[in-house]
């Protein structure tokens, strides 16, 4: 068991009321669910279904054309409504809509999972669509099917009072979570770090399964912060991260044989009628879920529905694969004094290195030199500064604070793609 780290850097939490964590509302009315390019950037799918096909929960919808072992499973029973491609036949959006027919059962079968010591766990996770739950660091991509990480980080922290509390979500799933964590040890020879809030004990620790405790600003809920504290990465030393709900779903799969498509999400934000926890499927349509959850304030005509939190999230029609929050915000002002005060949106403004930027990153990287390197696309300088420790969500605070209006997440992704290309 490792010590407790209090993260003091990063943006402070917003001041709105915390949400009631005691009840989880079941929402089965998500009319549709989608796989989006925002989560799987550059993924070229090799489809197993065509538009109009009926799919069951857990059915494989497509695989990665580069790595055919990596499968993606449907989280909703219904018909494939649309498949859209982006540039170079990459996936843009694949939408599954609930149809009026009777709900089909999920694709459970009582198969054998194989010898866990002999790659059985890995094969099952690949085949049943759990591989995309892992993200590599550096680069923040879905790992290659045969790669072995130096460590796996389970993120079971609660970034802010507006995110679901892991102790509540896992309350009746402790056994599944424990099973999931134990299974992760078959994927690596290194340690499994279970990062959690100091008051929680979500699983039992052992020589391989280590507990690490984090509290503080919302940045304490980012995997990048945990990894930088416990196991700094480099090009040669890759680690994986995974969310705690995915770990519990893996445990569920191995204990029952069923694909568990549902996750707990929070709905919060200044414009939410009543902040609450809901349980719905992965990639659910946000507008259906938020029906009746929005209150418009300040005489504005609309609100913004964000997948993710107010800092790292983005406007989306469907919940992102790696998000646990839906945030409802005021629409930005369209004219008047506050509009004039805010940043220009068309052209980049100047980067004024204010003192506030100094504390914006919870990871040991110098913010202003990094921002300068990213804004000119200098990959070598960014690597020297430590950008391999970062993914988009880690630098969202810089985007929020910088006067220039540049999207540092996007700039970082360009640099990371450049660096990844050099090593492949």
């Amino acid at each position, binding site marked *: 068991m490792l010590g407790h780290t209090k993260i003091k850097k990063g*943006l*402070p939490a*917003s*001041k709105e009321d915390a949400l009631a964590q005691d009840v989880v509302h079941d929402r089965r009315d998500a009319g549709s669910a989608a796989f989006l390019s925002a989560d799987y950037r550059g993924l070229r799918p090799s489809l197993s279904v065509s538009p109009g096909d009926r799919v069951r929960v857990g059915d494989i919808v497509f695989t990665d054309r580069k790595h055919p072992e990596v499968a993606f499973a449907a989280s909703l029973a219904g018909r494939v409504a649309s498949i859209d491609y982006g540039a170079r036949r990459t996936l843009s959006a694949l939408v599954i809509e609930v149809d009026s027919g009777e709900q089909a059962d999920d694709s459970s079968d009582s198969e054998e999972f194989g010898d866990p010591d002999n790659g059985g766990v890995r094969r099952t996770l690949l085949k049943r669509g759990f591989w995309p739950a892992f993200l590599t660091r550096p680069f923040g991509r879905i790992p290659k099917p045969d790669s072995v990480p*130096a460590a796996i980080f389970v993120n079971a922290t609660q970034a802010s009072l507006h995110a679901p509390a892991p102790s509540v979500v896992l309350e009746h799933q402790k056994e599944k979570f424990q099973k999931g964590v134990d299974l992760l040890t078959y994927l690596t020879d290194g340690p499994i770090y279970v990062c959690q809030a100091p008051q929680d004990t979500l699983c039992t620790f052992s020589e391989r399964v280590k507990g690490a405790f984090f509290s503080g600003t919302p940045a304490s809920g980012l995997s990048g912060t945990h990894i930088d504290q416990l*196991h*700094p990465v*480099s090009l040669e*030393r890759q680690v994986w991260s995974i969310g705690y709900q995915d770990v519990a779903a893996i445990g569920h799969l191995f204990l029952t044989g069923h694909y568990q498509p549902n996750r707990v999400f929070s709905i919060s934000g200044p414009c939410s009628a009543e902040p609450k926890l809901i349980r719905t499927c992965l990639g659910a349509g946000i507008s259906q879920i938020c029906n009746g959850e929005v209150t418009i304030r300040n005489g504005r005509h609309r609100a913004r529905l964000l997948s993710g939190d107010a800092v790292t999230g983005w406007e989306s029609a469907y919940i992102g694969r790696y998000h646990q929050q839906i945030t409802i915000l005021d629409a930005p002002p369209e004219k008047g004094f506050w509009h*004039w*005060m*805010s*940043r*220009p949106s068309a*052209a980049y*403004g*100047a*980067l*004024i*290195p*204010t*003192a*506030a*930027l*100094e*504390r*914006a990153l919870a990871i*040991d990287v*110098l913010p*202003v*030199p990094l921002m300068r390197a990213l804004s000119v696309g200098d990959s070598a300088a960014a690597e*020297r*500064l*430590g950008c391999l420790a970062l993914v988009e969500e880690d630098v969202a605070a810089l985007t*929020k*604070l910088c*006067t*220039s*209006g540049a999207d540092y997440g996007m700039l970082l992704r360009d640099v990371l793609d450049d660096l990844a290309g050099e090593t492949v």
Partner: protein
Amino acid sequence: MIVRPVLFPSLGVGGVSLLQGVALLPPLALSVFERGSGQVVLLAVALVTAVFWDLVFASVRKHRFYFHGITTAVIVAVLVPSALPWWQLALSLSLGCVLGEHIFGGRGFGFLSPAAICLSLLLLSFPQVQLEPLSQSVALATLPGVLLLLVTGLISGRVMLGALAVIGGLAFSANPEVDLIALVVPTLFGLVFLTCDPVSAASTKSGRWIYGLLAGLLISIFSKDVATITSAGIIFGSLTASVFAPLIDHLMVLAHAKRRQMRQRARQPNV
């Protein structure tokens, strides 16, 4: 603790100038009140000149027009003597705005403070100009602005503390009898708006300490003697220190990369 995101979530460059302008209001009001109509004329000349160049560059470059120049004009107007001929002010301010800011692309794209450039050009070109020391009341009126800029995270307390420590330390070592409060308070205005200007100061954490110490040292050297800090000393000291700011930042980046590498090796016992 960063307060700014709670107050102003996405502040543009215009917002930064506005906050700076708000911080400048009390010292400006007091200096106009104390020095009367001569000061009003100079302020008007400075504002017209600065806004003129803002307008010229906004229209030539087809940028959105901002009033950034106003803060430069106000800083200069507070520091210059009220007997200064208006054309000397207009000339030096034009050079300051254009050379310090507009030729780089506007506020925030340069690396020097336009006000410091304007004032140092004024002092070098017209040696008969003698800057008057700021009155105690103008200096005290700067304090609310200092607090505002520190709390909103626009200027760095490290730069300020570093500079004040060196100025105070040198004065004390030269003359242990020195009245530190009387020495330090009149320097506040120049320190906040020239030395601590985020555009021209160093931008890394440890770099800001070093930059602050260097600025304090240079200010003491450029002043009449270390026990009497002059406005001219602050202007030349800040300008010289800000020339070194990019170098300081570069060295800090190298040191940080080295430290990161060592830390990574330390955490890698078995691999």
